[in-house]
């Protein structure tokens, strides 16, 4: 250990800022960078508040570095809410509770990974190297957002850190695994994107008819399991019939 304090850690341990997103949403901001320690604090506060939501609060939206609390200001005023959040923070215990670890099948074949050659070229890697690096890393789910069930992952290896595209590319297929800006996303809905498609999972992160419509939670850990095209097709069929094809291990 050196004496130098990790700036991310320093931010993570400072008091949060309370910011207003209008009169019906309060942002509890723990920092302004992507940092696991900051995200831990967000998720810990989220868990405490959700376990016993103050009357008048409607939704809690955890992101990388802040928790947005939607509330009805006719039922709870801002000062009361801030006081209750401060009290909730005192109840926060260290560490993340109930983080599951997922193994998500991912096909890196060029037919499923439309941009892998382009990304590998920019990164000065071969296609196989890029796929191997991506599959070997351990990821953490920082947040869900943008489309239903979509997850944002940290833990992308340095060799795969790539800038986002200057302009969006045409829509990617459902289940696309993308990298961009040092992060990784698994995207269950067809959308245009400024990221690079480097693989595809047959798993459905959102399935309306499933008991747990949303498979993966913020705070979970995640790994990718490389599969070939034939396995992809097989798992895709099983997923379509309602089976969960990713593997889950409780913490």
């Amino acid at each position, binding site marked *: 250990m050196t004496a130098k304090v990790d700036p991310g850690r320093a931010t993570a341990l400072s008091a949060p800022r309370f910011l207003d997103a*209008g009169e019906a949403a309060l942002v509890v901001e723990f920092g*302004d*960078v992507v940092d696991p320690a900051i995200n831990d604090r967000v998720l810990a506060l989220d868990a405490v508040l959700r376990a016993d939501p103050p009357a008048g609060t409607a*939704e809690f939206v955890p992101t990388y570095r802040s928790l947005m609390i939607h509330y009805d200001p006719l039922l709870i005023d801002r000062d009361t809410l801030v006081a209750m959040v401060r009290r909730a923070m005192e109840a926060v215990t260290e560490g993340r509770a109930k983080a599951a670890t997922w193994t998500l099948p991912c096909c890196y074949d060029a037919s499923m990974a439309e941009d892998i050659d382009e990304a590998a070229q920019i990164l000065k890697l071969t296609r196989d190297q890029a796929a191997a690096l991506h599959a070997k890393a351990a990821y953490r789910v920082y947040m*869900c957002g*943008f489309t239903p069930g979509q997850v944002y992952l940290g833990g992308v290896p340095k060799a795969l850190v790539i800038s986002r595209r200057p302009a969006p590319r045409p829509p990617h297929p459902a289940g696309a695994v993308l990298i961009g800006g040092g992060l990784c996303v698994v995207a269950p809905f067809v959308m245009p994107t400024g990221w690079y498609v480097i693989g595809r999972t047959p798993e459905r992160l959102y399935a309306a008819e499933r008991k747990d419509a949303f498979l993966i939670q913020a705070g979970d850990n995640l790994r990718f399991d490389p599969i070939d095209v034939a396995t992809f097709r097989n798992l895709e069929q099983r997923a379509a019939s309602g089976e969960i094809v990713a593997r889950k291990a409780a913490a």
Partner: protein
Amino acid sequence: MTAGVPEAIIRILSAGPGTTLQDAGRHGYLRYGVTAAGPMDSLAHATANLAVGNPVGSTAIEVSPGGIEVTAEFASLSVAVAGGEFEISLDGRPLPPAAVLNLDEGAVLKIRTGRSGSWCYLAVAGRFVVPKVLGSHATHTRTGFGGVNGRAIIAGDRLRIESPGSSKPSPGAIVAPWLERPVDTIRVVLGPQHDYFADDQIAAFLAGPWSVSAKRDRMAYFLDGPRLTHARGYNIVSDGIAMGAIQVPGDGRPIVLMADRQSTGGYPKIATVIGPDLGRLAQARPGTAFGFEAVSIAQAVAARREEAAWLSRGIVVEPLVRTRLSSEFLLGLNLIDGVVGRDTVG
């Protein structure tokens, strides 16, 4: 038709693009990336529902500037229209822009874009029978959630109405002065990222003048006006987005995020439109000039309280005066004031 439960059909004869079914929104799933959707102008949506005796937040048709034409099948329907100043007619006879009426089987209700406003609501006494997605009928077309198979309403759709009720309201004007909202000033609460802008840029933001650009939909209203500059860059680590958030991307042109907004985003948000002014802004047409006024949380909450008070008094419906309708149409109408309380369920 289900035995025992009275039903009727509202048939869509024509519908402009972007006309959708909306209830109060799909709440509780923002944390999983699910957009709430819901009405662009919730005050007008609530007014139309209350006027037909439905609870606030019931499913209604949100009519886009493209307008709509509908008729009733199997039974008559008690309907209300409220929102922007659209041109309403029933079998060719003009009605006021906020009105209740009885839509007989085969009668044609036309709603066309009028003098002002961008959205209006067609509420029907009873309940729309369409599948719920995550507990809501709200249509979000980008993800295909809710409404009619996740899409906008189109000509030929036949929407089932359960428990349409048997009251046949005389045509009347909804007395809703709160729907007359000039768009000269839109109130905002500054933040959550106004510290990404220098004081002179905050001043420029408030002064405007702004206008809604032609580039607008249920997701976002792009604004035309001065270009704003950032003091601390324009990429932030993504955080939550409330309806009405005004984000300023790298080109300095603000975007107001509306009902179909994404759940999270990565541009600094200079301010957030207060709840009671969201509908006012939503109704603004491209080119209408306005400025922003920064208010405190307390002022914003007071405006909310005022809005809630209007609705809690119930909706007053005035019988139509002779100048508005032909005499043969008025013949036999029972011209009695009707007051529908918010607890009345049709």
